Every structure is written in C-alpha cells, then in structure tokens.
C-alpha cells in the first residue's frame, strides 16, 4: 500500500482524531498507545502531563504506592534495556519514554514538587517555583529564628529534637496543602508550598548539623 493510500485511509477513519500513523509501519495507532498493535514498534510518549503519563488522577493527594507501581510497570516495558537488539530509532524512543517516566515519577512522588507542578498546571507563575527571596516577612522571620535555634544546638539530642519538630511541621503542611488544593485555593497553596520549601531546606541543614555533631562526638 502506498504512502498516499495509507494517509487517505487514515483520514477516512471515523476515529481519526485519536489516531496517528505508526512511525514504523504507518498503521493507525491510538495516540496514547505504547506499542503499535500492527508491527509492535514502541511509540513516542507525546506531550502529556506527568499525571496522565503515569495514569494517576490529577490531584495533590496521590497514593504514592500506586505511583511506584505504575512507574515500575511502565519502566518494565519501556526501559531502553528492553530494546538493545532493536533499531536505533526504537532505542531512542525507549530512552525518551524512560526519561519522561523518570521525570514524572520524581515529581509525583515528592509532595513539594507535586505541589509546585500542580500550581504550574493551574497556570500559576507560582512563588514556590521562583528562586528569588519571597516577600513574606512572617515566613522569613520564622526561618531566621529556626536557623538561630539550630546554630545554638550543641548536642545531637538537641538537634534531634529540632528535627522531630520540623518533621511534624512538614506533616501538618502536607495536610494543609491537601485542603488548599481540594478547595482550589491556589494562592494559599502557593504560600504553603513556599513555606514547605523553606522547611525542606531547614531539614537538610539539621541533617548536616547532626552529622557534624555526631562526627565531633
């Protein structure tokens, strides 16, 4: 069958909107299919959001176990290791697919990155995604005080206490973020996410401080 005939048939297909020709055999393939049903060639992933890519409902509350499961399931069939004997083109597609899956997984499993991503999907130029210092005096004051407290901590026990406190705060922030996203209050979600970002940084500092103190002891 010639190229033109193929394309002709493709256009006449009733569900043409959802079909694209397979890059390899030119048979029509559903847009989100991973493989061509006719020739078995791996299909490019396309431009979809991370939730769609991993087959997870778009929401802040996600079941992380489900994310893991979906991710591993996709990687089992899409990873370039499965295409070593295939053509360079198929290997390249597998590589891109696996990279996209990795990125989606990294974003969805982490509440902070997930929140920032949801704000981006909501069309927000969110503060949490900016590198500049935030204009939230209360938050800045709080962060400064926390750091001073950490600097004053002189024993592993003291740092551990601060770590536990910060951990509890993180859990609380995640719960608040969940409510804000459920209510589609993106301004609040952005403020909470920014607060979460600072808390993350602080947690890293407590870790470093703890290791330094442990080494000294």
């Amino acid at each position, binding site marked *: 069958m010639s190229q033109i005939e193929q394309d002709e048939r493709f256009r006449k297909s009733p569900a043409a909107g959802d079909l694209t020709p397979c890059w390899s055999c030119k048979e029509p393939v559903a847009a989100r299919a991973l493989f061509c049903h006719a020739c078995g060639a791996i299909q490019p992933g396309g431009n979809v959001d991370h939730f769609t890519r991993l087959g997870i409902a778009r929401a802040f509350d996600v079941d992380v176990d489900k994310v893991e499961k979906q991710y591993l399931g996709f990687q089992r069939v899409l990873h370039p290791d499965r295409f070593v004997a295939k053509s360079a083109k198929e290997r390249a597609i597998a*590589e891109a697919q696996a*990279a996209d899956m990795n990125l989606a997984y990294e974003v969805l499993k982490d509440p902070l990155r997930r929140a920032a991503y949801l704000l981006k999907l909501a069309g927000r130029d969110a503060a949490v995604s900016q590198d500049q210092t935030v204009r939230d005096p209360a938050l800045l004051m709080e962060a400064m005080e926390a750091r001073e407290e950490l600097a004053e901590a002189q024993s592993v026990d003291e740092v551990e206490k601060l770590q536990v406190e910060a951990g509890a705060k993180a859990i609380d922030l995640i719960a608040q973020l969940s409510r804000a996203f459920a209510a589609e209050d993106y301004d609040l979600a952005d403020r909470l996410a920014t607060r979460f970002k600072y808390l993350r940084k602080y947690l890293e500092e407590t870790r470093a401080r703890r290791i330094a103190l442990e080494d000294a002891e």
Partner: protein
Amino acid sequence: MITLLQIHEPGETPEPHQAETGIAIGIDLGTTNSVAAIATDGKPEILRDKEGDGLVPSVVSYAGAEPVVGRDAVIQQMRRPDQVVSSVKRLMGRGAADIKSLSGTVPYEIHGDQQVGMVRLKVAGRVLSPVEVSADILRAIKVRAEAALGHEVSRAVITVPAYFDDAARTATKDAAKLAGLDVLRLVNEPTAAALAYGLDRGVEGLYAVYDLGGGTFDISLLRLQQGVFQVLATGGDAALGGDDFDHALAEAALKAAEQRTPTLVEAKNLLLAARRAKEILTERESTELFGSIRGAEFRQMIDRAAFEKLIEPMVAKTLKACRQVLEDANVQASEVKGVVLVGGSTRVPLVRRMVAKFFGREPLADINPDEVVAAGAALQAEALTRGGDTLLLDVIPLSLGIETVGGIVEKVIERNTPIPVAKAQEFTTYQDGQTGMLIHVVQGERETVDACRSLGRFELTGIPPMVAGAARIRITFAVDADGLLTVSAEEKTTGVKAQIEVKPSYGLGDDAMAEMLRDSLTHAREDMERRLLIESRVEAERMLLALDAATKSDGDLIQAEERQAIDRAVARLREAVAGDDRDRIAAAVEGLEKASHPFAQKRMDRAMEVALKGQRLDEVEASMATDRAQ
C-alpha cells in the same frame, strides 16, 4: 560438511554458530584484577584459564614489542617496574591536576607538563593514555574469553564503579571500542553484585551493597520490588580502596625502619610485600614484612591489631559514606534487609566487623567477592541479549551542573536522579547582539566550580543577534542508561538550533580517538587470523563429538582396519587442534573425513533400512531431501 552428520535427526544437528551470534559476556574491569563471565539460562559462570583461575591481574607490561597482560605482567613488574602499568583504572578520565591528589599512590611517571586533557603515562619509552592501557587489558580478556568459549566475542556488559563520573565512564567505553568490544551497557558494580546475589528473585525489600575494591569504594542502596531493581541512592569515594591499606602498611614499615627514600623498585616491592602481609593478616594474627631500602634489608613483625589501627580511619570513612547514602534515601540502617559485600578488600576482618556493626546484621559474603561483579555483569549481558524479567533502574551518582557568574555551580540534574533523564534549562544573553555563549559543564556536589570536576566546555554559536536578555536558549542535558551525558541547545524565540562544540576536559578528543582506532586496525589482521583459527577448532571439535556419538550407537559397523585408520586420523586431528596452525587443522579434518567415510556410508545404509520399514518410497525421498537441506 562431513557425511556422518547427515543422519542426525532434524533439530539434533549441532549449530553452535546460530546460538553464538547472540552471546555477550560480562566484564568486571577492576583496579587490581579483571574478571570475565558468561551467563546461560540465568546461571553465571566465570571464565577461567587452564589453572582454574578467573582473575586476570589488571597489569600491563610494555617491556616487549606487544603488551603483555595479567600474571606474566605481574612477574615482569617485579623486575622491570618502570615498564609495567598497574591500577590504571584510577586514572580513567582524569587530568593532570587530579593526579597530584593521588601522588604517592600511583607509581607511574606522568608524561610532560600537559595542562589539559586526560593524563598520559610514560612507560618504556611510549606515551600512553589510560584508555589505551585499559583497552590492552580488555583485549586480553576478549582473547581469553574467546579461547574459553571457542568463538568470537564482540559484545559485553562492562561494570564501572557507581561513583565513576562522566569522564571516567566515557573513557571506559572508549577503551572497549579500542579493544573491539561493543558495550551493550555500562552497569554499576554494586548493582551487578546485587544481581549476582539473585536478590531480584529473592525477598522484596531494601538492600545495601558495600563494595571496597583495590582503588575505589562504592555504597549503593537498592530496593527490590515487582522484579525491578531500583537503585535509590549511591555514594562512595573514587580514591579509596585496599591499595590504601597497602600504602598505610608500607609507610608504617618505612617509618619503623627510619627510612623514607626507597628506590622506585624498592617502593614497588615494598607495596607488594605489604599487600601480601595484609592478605595473611586476614587469616592469621601476625606476620612478617620483608623489604629493602637503599639495598639494606629489613624485616618487621606486624600483628593484626596494629594493622587494624592503621586502617581504622579509612574504614570509618567508608561508613560515613554509608550514612550519607542512608540519609539521601531517607531510611534507617535497621530497615536494610541485607548487606552484600563486594571487592577483595571486604575480606579484611576489620571491614566485616565494622560493616556488621553499622548495619546491625551480618553481611552476605557467600559469593567470592572478587567474582561477584563479573557474574552480575554476565547476568545483565544475558538479560540484554536474550531478554529477561529483571530490570535495573539506576541513578546518576553525582550532580551535573553548569558554571554561572562568579564560579558558582547551578545544578541541572541532582545526584541520585533515576536515569535515563533529560532536563532542560533556559539561559539568556547578557549583551546586545551576543551570538555566542560558553557553557562550562561540571559534575559534583560542591557549590563552586573549582571544587567540582570539569566535564567539558560547550561553545554555543549561531545565536541570532538580539537585545540582551531577549534570547531564550534552552539547553537540554540528557543522561542515558549508561550514565553518559549529551548536551544540546536551541534558541526558542527563533527556533535556531545552536551548534555545540564539545571540548572535553579530561576525555579524549575525537582526533585522539580516531588515531587510536587507526592503530587498532593494524591489529585487525591478527584478530581475523585468530578468529579463523578459533572457528576451525570449533569445527574440528564438533566433528570429533559427532564421530564419538556415531561410534557409540553404530560401532558394530566398523571393521578392524577401518577403526585403526579412524583412530589415527582422530589422534592427528586432536594434535592439530591443540596447536595454532589453522591449515594443519583443516588437513586433519579432511583426513578424518576420508578415514570415516566407509563407516558413514554404512550408517547411511542402516538408517535407510530402518526408515524404509513401513514407509512409502516418496516419503523416504522427501525425508532424505530434508536431511540434506539441514
């Protein structure tokens, strides 16, 4: 083909070539020793020499016209240390500046005062890059594997320390290319070890692989679930290993002897003596260390406690890296279900004790720690060529970033990100009409460029002239499943793709690589000869096997004088196969064919008789035609 084979049942005819084309071996290209293995149906087997030894010392002697690798090179090392290279893995992808930090631990003469590019060694009047030396080791491994398997080997999975940076990985791949090996995948050593332990078929959960080799230390944390082997975090020290234990011992000995300036030969011999002492101290409580300094011989008693005191800070350093990895993965040591020990240095009792204490459980060490990595590489090679259920998902060991204003590093891909990965970052111009841009890619965790490793400088040209800050240059960093980086760039407002010129900091430029490939082509003829020889051997072995089987089933058909002729021809062929003369093998094959011809004829007749019973003639003819087509 010999007539004897014609009466094999269809499907029974051995066709090794068909199966061989898909074969790939696993290679552990180690600092001290290298090992090759092959896996069949999920069972790895170490490729050994006639003495049953699987370890090839990663030592190359350049004393003669042709490089000599392995045990023979070790022997030459004692007599002519200046013409022999060992521990070259430590130099893979490294520049002259790195060597300063290793000084004292690498016993080579560094060539010239080169400021850029990968370090070159001066050995026996030749100037060699670590890539070439590694290629010589790989070539020797390839020859050995071909001898053991009886056919050509051109594909391999090669392991690298998880902590190897981009330059070292690229250097390893280049070395394989020079040696005529197609690298199916670079696999991280700890990951390969975990695979060899069959953890993928075992219990799901969290596992740590503690890999202390001759020159490198790696710690990896893996999670196993749904048959997927997921590396969560990896860390280590690219310049810490058992060699450092030897050094500590040797230095202590020099100190005790109140001598500091041995000759190069004496220093090398002292290091070897220290290594032996270290090995003995694994089994015994004390040993003696012999050495000579400036001709004066000395001997010292050393007991295990003193040795342990010397190396304790180094082992503690490895545990610090373990803790970091646990922190990175956000897990507690107690959550780890099993600890796998890899690398010869994990035989040191203190290492075992300290690791057991840290993780609160006895580590797994029932597979030979020197062979476990190669076994895992072989399993992965089989999985990649024949397919398998197991999947390895690895991570990038060190963050990738670019230099920004003031020598500060901006990270583009964080360490422990799963690979393959592609991330894009946007940049802009800072001057009106600016058409070019220099991007400096670094790898490491530190904030400043100086403290990280320089991977390369990328020059972007062809940016359309615009006012400052208007251009939107999107730079994509892609790391493939081997952990290798490629960079591409595009100006978004106009869609112009900017060209990138790679100036690798420590890798080999394309020119250098091309030159080395040309050199390796001069070896191609020898390689071809060798391959033909191997093929003729396989052919002969196959014939002997077929004859043997035929004699067992239909031996009664052979008459006495025929048997004598056959036996003579068999003896001649066996003798020829043991030698290296391809023509002689071919002649002996022909001789055996002739001698066994009457027997083959009689077997044909008998087979025919059996087949004819109760069959129509056309069926017999049809089946004979199929036989001939086999």
